[in-house]
């Protein structure tokens, strides 16, 4: 059945339930596509489908999983040399839940090392290529998951978002990516980058797939994750066709300077479309948003410097050969095991927490975080959602931003504010735009951010926009 690849994950699940599609055939189709992946999107592909649980809600539609989710007996390396070949003795709660719901593990996807990066060039296993233009990055850090879904190497995937790592690659690859409310999805078994920000979410071809996958990721809180929360109600499947009564706020701080004209053009066009669908669109203020990036690049490295201390060559992973003594074992293991960007962030994080600097950096950054959350709360008194582009640019050329770390960090400035506030945010593809120097048009992302636990409503609004936009990523799935 040649049309199988064109079925969205939810369509495939429905077809399986109707008995029209054999889940084994679907798994094999994707397994073969994944195994012959030329984008370097996968780091491991399953040999065969695991035994399906009885009457699974998701039918058996296979799932691509970002490398940093622990999967029992299966390589879980977080894109790092220090974990090369590491096979954990347990499985992450969210992967387990999805497998139980009928989304078996198809493969593990490439990513920036320990989720630090916005281009997927920081993987110890090589960069991932963007299926829209193989000379360009897919975004990061969930670049493997995004590229795999965009290229039809997986029906759907999960990734993690700390400062934009689901939304930005989704935007650059022309797919849907959702970062849920912090705490909605268990972090147990997710190899941590920055614990107070990390959150798992779906990367899918369309909004309906995102809703279906998310509905099985959230629910009852995980007793193994103290920061996880009961989701107040089941995720509703989106169906909205108009935006009557929906109030969208457009923050001036995140819709002007520093954004490529092509991206801004697509954003304005989508706002116009939203108006035509009945939404009210007005400007709003997030006065502290311009400081979000600075606060983020204090808090995330600080947490990562501590989270990555466990990679010491004692219990698992890489250890430098023939160390002279304990100190050199630690120092050489961590030098050789970590890549350049991870070392940079570990250094930055260690510095901002070190004696005498804590209050100036970490303490202040946490207060900025309070202000940013308050800005959003104020906006949500007037608006249902705040909207802005997901990424300030379309996919850029491999290697083009590696020389200047801060230039790379600037990719996150539109996605980081929602991360700091812990609120859900969603990116949908809203067309194509040419890069600044001209060239083949590339996908652009439109971002919605809403109050905590507004995922169902947000997906509903995104669905209406998606239907009206008519974006079709079929071109890169062949």
């Amino acid at each position, binding site marked *: 059945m040649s049309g199988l690849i064109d079925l969205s994950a939810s369509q495939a699940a429905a077809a399986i339930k109707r008995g029209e599609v054999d889940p084994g055939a679907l798994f094999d189709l994707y397994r073969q596509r994944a195994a012959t992946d030329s984008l370097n999107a996968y780091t491991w592909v399953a040999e065969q489908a695991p035994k399906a649980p009885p009457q699974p809600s998701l039918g058996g539609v296979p799932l691509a999983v970002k490398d*940093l*989710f*622990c999967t029992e007996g299966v390589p*879980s390396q*977080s894109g790092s040399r220090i*974990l090369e070949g*590491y096979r*954990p*003795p*347990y499985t*992450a709660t969210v992967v387990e839940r999805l497998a139980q719901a009928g989304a078996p593990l198809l493969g593990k996807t490439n990513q920036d090392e320990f989720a630090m990066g916005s281009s997927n060039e920081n993987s110890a296993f090589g960069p991932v290529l963007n299926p829209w233009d193989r000379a360009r990055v897919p975004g990061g850090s969930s670049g493997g998951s995004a590229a795999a879904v965009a290229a039809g190497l997986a029906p759907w995937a999960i990734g993690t978002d700390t400062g934009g790592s689901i939304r930005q690659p989704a935007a650059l690859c022309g797919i849907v990516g959702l970062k849920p409310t912090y705490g909605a999805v268990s*972090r*147990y*078994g*997710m*190899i*941590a980058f*920055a*614990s*107070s920000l990390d959150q798992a979410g779906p990367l899918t071809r369309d909004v309906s797939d995102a809703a279906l996958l998310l509905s099985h990721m959230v629910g009852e809180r995980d*007793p*193994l*994750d*103290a*920061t996880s929360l009961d989701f107040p109600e089941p995720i509703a499947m989106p169906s909205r066709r108009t935006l009557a009564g929906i109030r969208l706020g457009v923050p001036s701080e995140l819709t002007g300077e520093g954004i490529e004209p092509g991206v801004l053009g697509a954003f304005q066009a989508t706002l116009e479309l939203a108006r035509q669908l009945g939404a009210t669109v007005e400007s709003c203020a997030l006065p502290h948003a311009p400081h979000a990036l600075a606060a983020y690049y204090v808090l995330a490295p*600080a*947490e990562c*410097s*501590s989270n*990555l*201390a*466990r*990679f*010491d060559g*004692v*219990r*698992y992973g890489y250890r430098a050969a*023939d*160390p*002279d*003594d*304990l100190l050199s074992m*630690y120092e050489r293991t961590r030098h050789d095991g970590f890549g350049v960007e991870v070392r940079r962030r570990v250094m930055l994080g*260690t510095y901002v*927490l*070190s*004696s005498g600097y*804590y209050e100036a950096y*970490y303490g202040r950054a946490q207060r900025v975080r309070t202000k940013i959350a308050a800005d959003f709360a104020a906006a949500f008194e007037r608006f249902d959602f705040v909207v802005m582009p997901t990424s300030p640019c379309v996919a850029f050329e491999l290697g083009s931003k590696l020389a200047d770390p801060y230039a790379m960090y600037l990719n996150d400035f539109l996605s980081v504010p929602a991360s700091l506030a812990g609120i859900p945010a969603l990116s949908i593809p809203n067309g194509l735009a040419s890069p600044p120097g001209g060239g083949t048009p590339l996908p652009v992302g439109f971002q919605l951010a809403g109050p905590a636990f507004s995922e169902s409503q947000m997906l509903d609004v995104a669905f209406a926009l998606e239907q009206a936009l008519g974006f079709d990523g079929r071109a890169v799935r062949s």
Partner: protein
Amino acid sequence: MTPDFEPVIGLEIHVQLKTRTKMFCGCELSFGAPPNTLTCPVCLGLPGALPVANARAIHFALMIGLALGCELADHSVFHRKNYFYPDLPKGYQISQYDEPLCRGGELAGVRLHRVHLEEDAAKLIHLGASGRIHGSEQSIVDFNRGGTPLVEIVTEPELRSGEHAREWLSLLRATLRSLGVSDVNMEEGSLRADANVSLRPAGSTPLGTKTELKNMNSFRFLERGVTAEIERQRAIIEGGGEVAQETLHFDPASGALTTLRSKEEAHDYRYFPEPDLVPIATTAEMLEQARAAIGELPAARAVRFERDFGLSAEMAHLLAFRSDLGDYFEAANAASAADSGHAQQLANWVSGQLVARIGEQDPATSNVTPAALATLVELVSARELTNGTAREVLDVLLQSGGDPRAIVAERGLASLSDDSELAAIVAAAIAADPDAAAKVRAGNAKAIAALIGPVMRETRGRADGSEVTKLIREQLGV
């Protein structure tokens, strides 16, 4: 003239809590389990694992806080204390920093600074030269102990000598033991104490430079270590030198104090709030449960012993603060005939003869039942046994248990006090030594000893000394 110096000592005490499972995971606590058989992803610090705090550990810590009169925080948080060591699986210890569970408090006139919760490190076994690999010595890590719940108790620097430190710590141990929250055994490591020691001119307020003493794993070593350090500092100061701030290791075998770490090598722990855990909000219900779980504390018990049994303050204190002795004393007292008035004698026997024979052992685990001791005391009181033969009976009881009356009967140890047999023996002794008899008749009171001796030898201690004296005087008519 050298001024007189006053030692200033503070203790930092770690107490392993007697929960079923570890502080942040469900592994059972290790009591001599084979190495590395009580671990899980959490306490091995595997990538992706998350801690969840043990409710009973918090309950125990609240009990300790209440028992020591601390101020209990209604909001307290865990921090990460970052440093590298092979026994620390995550590269940080989860501890408490500026928002501990308890502050203040007091025990036996020594004020407490704080009481907080944390997790224990793993066990590191140094193989030394026998375990050389690549020319360097090896150590082995056993993570069974890693993650055991600890309560850290920090005193104000209000102890004044090694002896004072030892006595005070034994009071603390008694208090903790009576709470049932820990085995509080120094030799086994469930109670550990470090001491901060400094000297200052007598009567002055500012503290001198302090040193920290580690590894004093018995009450005796604590006293000896602190005493040795006071003497070392006194010698330095009197020699015109200055005490260096450092961490010292006390070697109980040689009595030597060696430097572990100087001030320059001091750690920079980069404390920051543990993002994987949420705060502890001490509820009224938690407090109520902790309060209800506290039985009678040693101080209150001492007051009761004094009041209800008429014991001296010193005796009451001794029995109350060694709860095993107190329990045994109360059991023996209960086994005595009502209104026997033997409480004082029972206390003497428990704290005197019994402790002299069994030392630190819990008398309840000896062969002497409390009822047997009560019987023994009754026999002495009724002059059916002399003190000397009673001690003999106690030795037999300790050897092989049993009933004192049966032992007395079997061994013919009953007193000869009211027996004509004794009168005959006395008469024979007088007849055998006419010189002594003459001297006594002549008013030389001291000469009576020469007559008592042979009687006691003849009766093998079954005769009461004062009874024998009385009979000699009667027969000699003095």
